[in-house]
């Protein structure tokens, strides 16, 4: 049901400001059934309609969105989250680095209260806000 619903725009200051779109040219393609499909971190919903829920973050590229077919599905009825690719979280095993990319959708992404522009690294304990949902990023 929430899959067919249109994404609602949040009335927040600066929402109409142009954002720098993330360059995802070097990002590996998301593979759902990776041979390892290793869980490397978790996202815990600390505020919003899905409060208390948890989603694993896998090795590689993870699409974050409201639809159930995202690798990180935030499918608990927050219609301010875009259906597909509101954000992307990647884990590079070689560099041992997590990064978060802005999907360039209607509502912005905030990391630790700072509006995401393009992409940035993600560290243990960071908070991510997508739509009305706040997530806490924790390493496994």
């Amino acid at each position, binding site marked *: 049901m929430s899959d067919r619903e249109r994404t609602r725009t949040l009335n927040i200051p600066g929402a109409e400001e142009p954002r720098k*779109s993330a360059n*995802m040219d070097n990002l590996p*393609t998301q*593979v759902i059934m990776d041979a390892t499909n290793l869980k490397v971190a978790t996202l815990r919903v600390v505020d919003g309609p899905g409060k208390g829920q948890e989603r694993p973050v896998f090795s590689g590229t993870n*699409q974050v969105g409201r639809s159930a*077919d995202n690798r990180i599905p935030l499918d608990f009825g927050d219609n301010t989250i875009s259906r*597909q*690719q509101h954000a*992307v979280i990647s884990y590079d095993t070689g560099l041992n680095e997590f990064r978060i990319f802005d999907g*360039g959708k209607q509502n912005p992404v905030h990391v630790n209260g700072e509006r995401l522009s393009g992409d940035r690294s993600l560290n243990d304990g960071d908070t991510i806000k997508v739509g009305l949902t706040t997530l806490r990023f924790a390493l496994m």
Partner: protein
Amino acid sequence: MKDWIAILWEGLAGLAARRNVPSQRGGRAEPVDRDASAGKSPGERPPETAIEPDVPNTRIPPLPEHTPVAILEFEGPPGPVPIKHGDTVIGRHSEDDVRISDVRISRHHARLRAGSERCEISNLTALRPDPNPMFVNGTYREHAEVVDGDVISLGGVSFTFRKARNGD
């Protein structure tokens, strides 16, 4: 091809009747009535040689290589995308001809070869040890001929292939 014939026919008919045949296509500039603009009554017509240089050059059709051969219809962004004659690379990379910003799609995922008669699509990741799948109407394909109405899925992102109408 039909376009060219229609335009040629229009031109010939116009010359023969010494009047302009209304254009069959929308959006084109209609030639002005030369008799009215010259201040002459419609009955008096100048000799053919005199009107020849005045014929407005508005009937040149777009070159075939610039006419869309097909349209890819995406439900979400990028929406409907016109495809020109020749090769088109579809993928996530900023250098691709058709760019789909979705991490499920490979950076250079498929190549569409569009000819005037037939269009073919190939999965550019097919030779990799772990190809990113391409489905045409739900069937896994490495290479396929596509026709109007076919639904192509690249890594889970679907779009409909529409053959552009030409000549009417």
